């Protein structure tokens, strides 16, 4: 198993933080060189990986501002719900950011050269007195301090009546989807004034509403396939070749619930909070409240593997329901080779599961524990008596500290964990310089 070492601590120094600083999304780009985070205040911070392996701030910009919907008399939050990078096709970087209502395409470009020696203007930009110009000169490029500029290139607005929960760029690099609670729209990256609706779950009578879309994602290789999950615990795979409106699914991934074990919370607990295709495109990872499941796209009736994230919460569902924690949406992530999956939990814990060896580990991402260069020690949550001194009792878990957003470097064993306003970046101890080594198994003994 991996033994993560904190390589970048991008935590706020002061323990007090405002709600606006809470990180709401984390995403590596396709090469892993850049890491983008969005927060509740509508800001995007992009980190770049230095040659030494550390991530430092590259660019910061305000992506979304708070708005007010005058028709409904409601505020529209500026919180960044999702960030998705576009595949690179020129030296500039493009990313899509979205809040509840509007998707924006940002271009982040560097400028490290400046042209000097213009004929008509001087260095400060003032017009020269024409009588002083006696010769013509060709402007030359001189190096300057690196300037990173972010500019909005497209704004895709007014297409969603409900809150956008996900965006996903298609493998054709020309289109992308945006999904809200009831609808999924297909956009072209260059066309902002219209989009196609491809999934519509809105019932005739809103009072019949019993299911909402939670996450949607395009297949990494097949441009016609998309998956979306719902609050009822089902994940659907849709093929856009079949028909324009993909309300009819091509595949439905749902695990039958044992009726004898059904409780009032069964449906809430089964609501899928994140869906991720594997890098290979063969598997699907779904996260519900208590488990994370790996599905084979060819097998719909049950998952290939099920991993218990925090099964000790199964008996606490009532109080979690009361405190609304049961509605927390945890994300999940694959590693680059699809051999390890990771997801967050409470008490600033996150979990990693090795699919091959079936070992898992619980680690903590918090200021007290994370020191530079120190290997994270595994944690254990015990239900009853503590077996070891380092065990943590279920009752002492802090449910306000939740790790909802995690990301894994697309190629290397580097992970980014967002814990409220703190961002932790860990890399595998075995591979400080980024090369792949055989990961050392150091997890807690398998249950």
């Amino acid at each position, binding site marked *: 198993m991996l033994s993560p070492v904190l390589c970048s601590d991008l935590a706020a120094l002061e323990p007090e933080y405002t709600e606006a600083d809470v990180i709401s999304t984390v995403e590596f780009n396709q090469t892993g060189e850049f890491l983008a985070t969005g927060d509740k205040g509508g800001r995007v911070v992009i980190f770049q990986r230095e040659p030494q392996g550390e991530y430092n701030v590259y660019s910061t910009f305000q992506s979304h501002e708070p708005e007010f919907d005058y028709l409904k008399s409601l505020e529209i939050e500026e919180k960044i719900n999702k960030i998705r990078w576009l595949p690179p096709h020129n030296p500039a970087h493009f990313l899509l950011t979205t809040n509840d209502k509007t998707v924006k395409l940002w271009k982040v470009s560097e400028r490290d050269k400046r042209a000097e020696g213009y004929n008509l203007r001087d260095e400060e930009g003032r017009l020269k007195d024409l009588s002083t110009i006696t010769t013509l000169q060709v402007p030359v490029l001189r190096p300057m301090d690196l300037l990173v500029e972010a500019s909005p290139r497209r704004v895709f607005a007014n297409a969603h009546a*409900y*809150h956008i929960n996900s965006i996903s760029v298609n493998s054709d690099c020309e289109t992308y989807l945006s999904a809200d609670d009831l609808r999924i729209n297909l956009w072209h990256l260059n066309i902002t004034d219209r989009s196609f609706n491809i999934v519509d779950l809105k019932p005739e009578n809103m009072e*019949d509403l019993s299911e909402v879309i939670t996450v949607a994602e395009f297949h990494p290789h097949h441009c016609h396939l998309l998956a979306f999950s719902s609050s009822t615990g089902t994940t659907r795979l849709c093929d856009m070749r079949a028909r324009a409106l993909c309300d009819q699914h091509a595949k439905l991934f749902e695990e039958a619930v044992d009726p*004898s074990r059904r409780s009032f919370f069964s449906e*809430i607990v089964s609501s899928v909070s994140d869906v991720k295709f594997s890098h290979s495109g063969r598997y699907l990872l779904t996260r519900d409240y208590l488990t994370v499941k790996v599905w084979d796209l060819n097998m719909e009736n049950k998952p290939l593997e099920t991993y218990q994230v925090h099964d000790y919460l199964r*008996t606490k569902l009532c*109080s979690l329901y009361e405190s*609304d*924690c049961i509605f927390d949406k945890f994300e999940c992530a694959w590693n680059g080779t699809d051999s390890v999956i990771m997801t967050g939990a409470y008490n600033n814990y996150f979990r990693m599961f090795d699919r091959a060896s079936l070992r898992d580990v619980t680690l903590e991402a918090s200021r007290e524990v994370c020191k530079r260069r120190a290997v994270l020690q595994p944690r254990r949550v015990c239900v009853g008596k503590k077996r070891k001194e380092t065990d943590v009792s279920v009752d002492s878990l802090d449910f306000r500290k939740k790790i909802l957003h995690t990301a894994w470097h697309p190629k290397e064993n580097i992970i980014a964990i967002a814990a409220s306003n703190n961002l932790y970046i860990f890399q595998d101890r075995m591979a400080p310089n980024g090369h792949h080594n055989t990961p050392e198994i150091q997890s807690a003994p398998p249950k």
Partner: protein
Amino acid sequence: MASIFVVSAERFIPLFPRLACQGVLAHFLPTSVRWGRGGESVGGACVIRALWMNYPLPPSLAGMSPMLQAPVTLVGWPRRQGVLVSVLWLSTLDFLFGFQSRNNYHFKKMLNMFSKGTKRKFSDGDEEISDESLVGARVASSYSLQRQSLLDMSLIKLQLCHMLVEPNLCRSVLIANTVRQIQEEMTHDGSWHMVTEAFCGPGQSPSERLVATEVLCRSREQDAEPKLFSVISYEGCREEEVVADETLCSVSVSDTVSNVCLAGRIGQCWEKSELSGVERDEEALEDSRLGSGEDEEIDTEDGASTESPKTTGQVFGTFEIKNSSPAPDSALEELFSDVDTSYYDLDTMLTGMQSAPKMGPYDILDSLAPSHSSPSIVSTPKCRSDLNELDHIMEIIVGS
């Protein structure tokens, strides 16, 4: 600032003395007014400004003083004729205060729910509510009590949508589905029927009653038919207010009688539906229920649930509470024996109150009067509202 009072035809029940029992004296700046059906009672939502300088604030509330300055919305407003409110829910943006009347009619803060996050033990002194899963072999009454509390909690959660930002649709849908599930189960194992039967019998307990509510006001003849208590929903209000002002109430009965839950309309949580359409559906439901009368409640429930999709929005149904002759509560009688209810009149309430020296000027009710009157207000002889009288009552209560 004006006071909000709960007014019933029989009893004048000032609201804030209840809070004063807890040591919190409040000025109420009404933000919304809810009419009881038949004009029998009105509750109001208000801004509570605590004048706890004048009254000792109990330690349990002391830490919450900033919260008490938030606008409060009347969440639930149950009432049974002749009996004081069982549970009055007041919610602020962050807190939900549940005031439950006990035998001595003190409003005890029953629930204190944070809107986000903080883990809290949901325990009431009298009731043991376990965290365990509801499935499994349990004592029947304990299970149904748990189920009821879950239902109550869910209904309250559906109500807490009065915020500036649009509520989370996914969460609302999940809670609504949970409520539906509970209701179906309660229907199938006859709990609904059992409960309604309980209200039919003559020897029923006079203590906390549950009152059925509908979303829309409905006028009914008094006494001849089973009374239905309803609350108007604001048609002109924006969605959030409508949701927040829906009357959803429930009471946990301390004995083993199952509770009847009160109905609300989930659909409003999601968007403003056609109120007239819904009203028609409700009438259909209502009529079917009334017609059944003493019939098996289960049948009507099933009938309701298999009706057209339009009516499933009323999945919880509405219930008739067949009120027998109101059993007098001696404590209540004593307490209010000297209150002359003829002094108090709904019209007066709405048209404004004379200021009481302690309370300060009251004027907001004036503005609320025209828009929120129920068509079925019973008009009683005009009277003066004497807030000195109120203070007097309050003194009595606080002193007791």
